[in-house]
């Protein structure tokens, strides 16, 4: 699939969303799987743009690409913002999720939704670039 490179501003979210919707359609993902993937990629892209670039006083790009095989769809987000491993975040546990909304700290849900939305998620930092990798299994028996 053709990759897409966008200036890392919040305006990129809409374009990335369209890219994922299209990729999910090409991969024959069902509606729930497609939505989960879009949500996962959008959460990470938002973090990259907001924390990796803006709050760090940096400007740059975010690139999205996709690889489709018979068995899976892999989406990769790449950026040159500050190194940030989303998995280093503390995930909200059951304690958090059962707290009344009045008592919840704001935030912390993004990564939770990432891990709920995809079949596999990976982060690596290679040659000064953050790579966030999202993998969805394709439905079995998908005709080519």
């Amino acid at each position, binding site marked *: 699939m053709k990759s897409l490179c966008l200036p890392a501003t919040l305006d990129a979210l809409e374009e990335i*969303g369209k890219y994922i919707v299209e990729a999910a359609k090409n991969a024959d993902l069902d509606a729930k799987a497609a939505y989960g993937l879009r949500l996962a990629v*959008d959460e990470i892209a938002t973090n990259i743009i907001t924390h990796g670039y803006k709050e760090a006083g940096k400007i740059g790009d975010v690139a999205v690409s996709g690889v489709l095989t018979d068995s899976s769809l892999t989406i990769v987000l790449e950026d040159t913002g500050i190194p940030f491993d989303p998995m280093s975040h503390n995930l909200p546990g059951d304690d958090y999720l059962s707290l009344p909304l009045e008592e919840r700290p704001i935030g912390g849900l993004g990564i939770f939704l990432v891990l709920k939305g995809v079949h596999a998620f990976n982060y690596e930092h290679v040659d000064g670039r953050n790579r966030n990798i999202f993998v969805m299994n394709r439905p079995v028996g998908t005709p080519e």
Partner: protein
Amino acid sequence: MIIETKVEGANVIATVSGDIDGKTAPQVQSELLAALQAGNRLLVDMNGVSYLSSAGLRMLLLLYRQVASKKGKVVLVSVSEEIRDTMSMTGFINFFTLAETREAGLAALA
């Protein structure tokens, strides 16, 4: 993103259309919080919303707190199945009243 608000008595009726993400959630949040100056019962018609990220959940959290502090109520109308799933898995769904139609939403608000 289209946001319309109107006030009917103590009811604030909002209609939101578009994706609620990291870019648009702050805008929706500020308009709805401003509208809540006029009442403590909020109906948000989300028929035109097909996507809501954690930024949208954060917005719902702030709206809920604002309304709860004024002993009011939030009713969400026409919430898509995927958004309901997101609200369920994060435990948000228990704090909001969901209605299928605007009429049912208004009845639930009373």
